[in-house]
């Protein structure tokens, strides 16, 4: 590129001193003008030209600022898009995680369901007191497994933000008594004392989550205690008008060394020695407790002395109101004799257990795997059932409600329906409601099933 040049006539003869003097004089004039201009530009007192200059500079500054802002806006738009994409991806991942969990829980709970039903039938068949006691123990073991699976599912749902706690007034004495009853056999087996000291308090919490928290704490305490006992104590803090309640689970176990105290709340942490019980316990206990407590905004604290024991304290608010009145249980059924029950269940062991249970209650039971079975039976003159127990998920992705639909459309049979599923999703609940079916989550509890059947047949 050419350098900018001041336009001047070339000197006629560059050699003469006269012409050089002329050039010098010109350049001095130019220089003086430029200096004066520069000084004037610095001066606040601007003339008309400087007004023009100022206007353009302002215009330029506004434009530069606009461009900057536009660029910033574009980059924000781009990062928004990226965030949106990431969010969608995360949501998709969450949805598939939830679907996976629903499916897994279904598969896990299905055999459990069958076992419990069989157990119930077995108890009815073998009326000896010893057999009943053993059956009760098995029943409790199954319950614990069920709780553990449910806890895992719930924790995942808590993590995914799917489950939100339902906080309302809960009566502590009922809850603690239930826990004491369920853990007494375990304590007795280890020759540990299980003591509760529970003031009659009503706390503001989610009853289900609090029960899980305490179950975990008590279960842990029993597992890691070799002698002595476990105390569950609940009392008001801060005097008679205190607004807080503290629930302590205290054991006389080996204690937790100081350097491990931070770790006990992590997943899959177990104490220095495995419990001799060997059975359940994945080391999920305290990690779950902490998540649930933090979801509920209850403080949890740990105190431990080596060789003396450990105390875990949960602090939660006292409720301002009394709890809602207990919903009275449906009266026990007696009218099942001779009732025609149609069962649609694709899982063979569950089907068998259910059949045995229903027959024990003197019901007439027909069991089919799918709609095709029902259609065949209808062809051979199957009588109209009084009630149907239908599994939602059948083989090959078929839906149990198709059977209901088929019978309504082709036979005009509007029969009461109990829909069973291990899927806790809102979708299925909505479908059940739309069909007018009663929804029962697996594993089916025999007593619940029996009273529901009686109610529906009444």
């Amino acid at each position, binding site marked *: 590129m050419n350098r900018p*040049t001041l336009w001047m006539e070339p000197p006629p003869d560059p050699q003469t001193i006269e012409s050089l003097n002329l050039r010098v004089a010109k350049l001095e*004039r*130019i220089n003086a003008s430029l200096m004066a201009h520069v000084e004037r530009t610095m001066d606040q007192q601007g003339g008309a030209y400087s007004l023009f200059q100022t*206007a*353009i500079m302002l215009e330029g500054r506004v434009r530069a600022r606009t461009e900057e802002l536009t660029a910033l806006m574009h980059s924000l738009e781009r990062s928004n898009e990226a965030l949106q994409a990431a969010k969608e991806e995360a949501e998709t991942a969450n949805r598939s995680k939830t679907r996976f969990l629903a499916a897994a829980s279904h598969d896990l709970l299905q055999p459990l369901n069958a076992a419990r039903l069989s157990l119930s039938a077995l108890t009815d068949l073998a009326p000896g007191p010893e057999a009943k006691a053993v059956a009760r123990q098995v029943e409790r073991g199954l319950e614990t497994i069920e709780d553990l699976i449910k806890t895992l599912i719930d924790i995942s749902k808590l993590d995914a933000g799917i489950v939100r706690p339902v906080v309302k007034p809960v009566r502590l004495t009922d809850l603690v008594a239930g826990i004491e009853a369920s853990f007494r056999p375990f304590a007795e087996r280890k020759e540990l004392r299980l003591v509760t000291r529970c003031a009659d308090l009503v706390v503001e919490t989610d009853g289900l989550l609090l029960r899980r928290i305490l179950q975990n704490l008590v279960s842990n305490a029993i597992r890691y205690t070799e002698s002595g006992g476990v105390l569950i104590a609940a009392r008001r803090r801060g005097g008679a008008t205190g607004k807080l309640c503290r629930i302590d689970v205290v054991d006389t176990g080996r204690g937790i060394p100081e350097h491990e105290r931070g770790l006990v709340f992590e997943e899959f942490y177990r104490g220095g020695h495995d419990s001799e019980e060997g059975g359940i316990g994945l080391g999920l206990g305290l990690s779950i407790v902490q998540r649930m407590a933090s979801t509920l905004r209850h403080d949890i604290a740990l105190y431990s002395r080596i060789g003396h024991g450990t105390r875990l304290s949960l602090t939660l608010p006292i409720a301002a109101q009394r709890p809602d009145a207990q919903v009275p249980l449906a009266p026990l059924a007696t009218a099942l004799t001779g009732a025609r029950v149609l069962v649609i269940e694709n899982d063979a062991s569950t089907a068998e257990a259910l059949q045995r249970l229903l027959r024990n209650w003197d019901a007439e039971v027909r069991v089919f795997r799918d709609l095709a079975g029902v259609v065949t039976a209808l062809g051979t003159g199957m009588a109209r059932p009084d009630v149907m127990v239908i599994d939602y998920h059948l083989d090959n992705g078929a839906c149990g409600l198709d059977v209901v639909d088929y019978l309504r459309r082709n036979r005009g049979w509007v029969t009461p329906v109990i829909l069973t599923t291990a899927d806790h999703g809102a979708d299925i609940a909505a479908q059940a409601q739309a069909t007018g079916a009663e929804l029962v989550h697996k594993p089916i509890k025999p007593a619940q099933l029996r009273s529901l059947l009686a109610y529906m047949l009444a």
Partner: protein
Amino acid sequence: MAHGTQMRRHLCGIQTVWTDAGEAEGAVASVAEAIDRSIVGHLIVFFSPAYEAEVLTASLAAHFPGVGVSGCSTSGGISPAGTIERGLVVIAFPRQGFRIVSGLLTQITRLDVEGAASTVRGLRRLLDQGRPEGVGGHRFALSLIDSLANAEETVVSAVAWALDGIPLIGGSAGDDLAFSSTILIRDGVLCRDAAVILLVETDFPIRIFKSDNFEPTQRKFVVTAAREEERRVSELNAEPAAREYAMAVGLDPENLSTMSFAAYPLAVKIGGEYYCRSISRVEPDGSLTFFCAIGEGVVMTLAQPRDIVEATRAELEGLDEALGGLDLVIGFDCVFRRLDAESRQVRHRIADLYKRYGVVGFETYGEQYRAMHLNQTFTGIAIGRAETP
């Protein structure tokens, strides 16, 4: 070529009329006949200096009683039919869809900046007060300024200050390159050494614009002597200004003409961009008078025009696209652009573009764009077809 009197009715309700009638009274009469006067709320008139201004204002008052009138003399009117060398261009705004208030700034040679700003603020208040409930239209300001007062920079900065963000565009009145008498009119009053300011609020989409067509060369000049209040440069590079300029562009200093100034503009570089500073004429003493403020020590760059047709087409196409179809354009086109287009024999192509996009306006001695007074540009306001909801 005689045009007679022609009228165009635009979608926004504006009627534009142009006539090449030989004298003012007949021109106004034919305009009044051509348009639907019942809907008109304000007239902007651009007239040939050959018209008798007193007759013009009297005729306008007679034919358009109660209608606001603003206008100025020009160096040529712009109409869709081409340049009106002797005649009248009228933009008749309807009362529906446009609300217009106007004010007059006098004695701009010694402008009272505070007074001018408060006049403009008064106009803004007037527009605010008359505004119907819940209406928020698009606003712009139009300036018509007497160029012989050498005061556009001061006027524009005072007005833009008071407008506080409302975009301003406008033109400096002309007198067919005679440089003896430019005239402004407002509501029957004839003025010199004055500026007419209009504030317009409309329901239609608008966009202001500025287009130029020159690029800098490597040749630089320094203003070494000037009389700034007269915009007169007596020396460039410590040589008589006219001679130095003529030598640089390779012309005989005795034969410099407006055509030469149009073909070889000078520009100053401010904030990374070049702005034309046009020479209006050579004075007998060999100094050069400009259309804009100039100062000693200012460095000027010789510029050369680029393809004026292409630059103009690009600007109008861009506006057409941005507004979803142009309804009309009120334009202020530097008289030198017309002269340069003429000498390059592309004037008919510019006229075609103006016709296609409905450009009306006049040929100026300077253009106003926001807070700037410019030379050798085409500025204006474009009105789009779609009525904003």
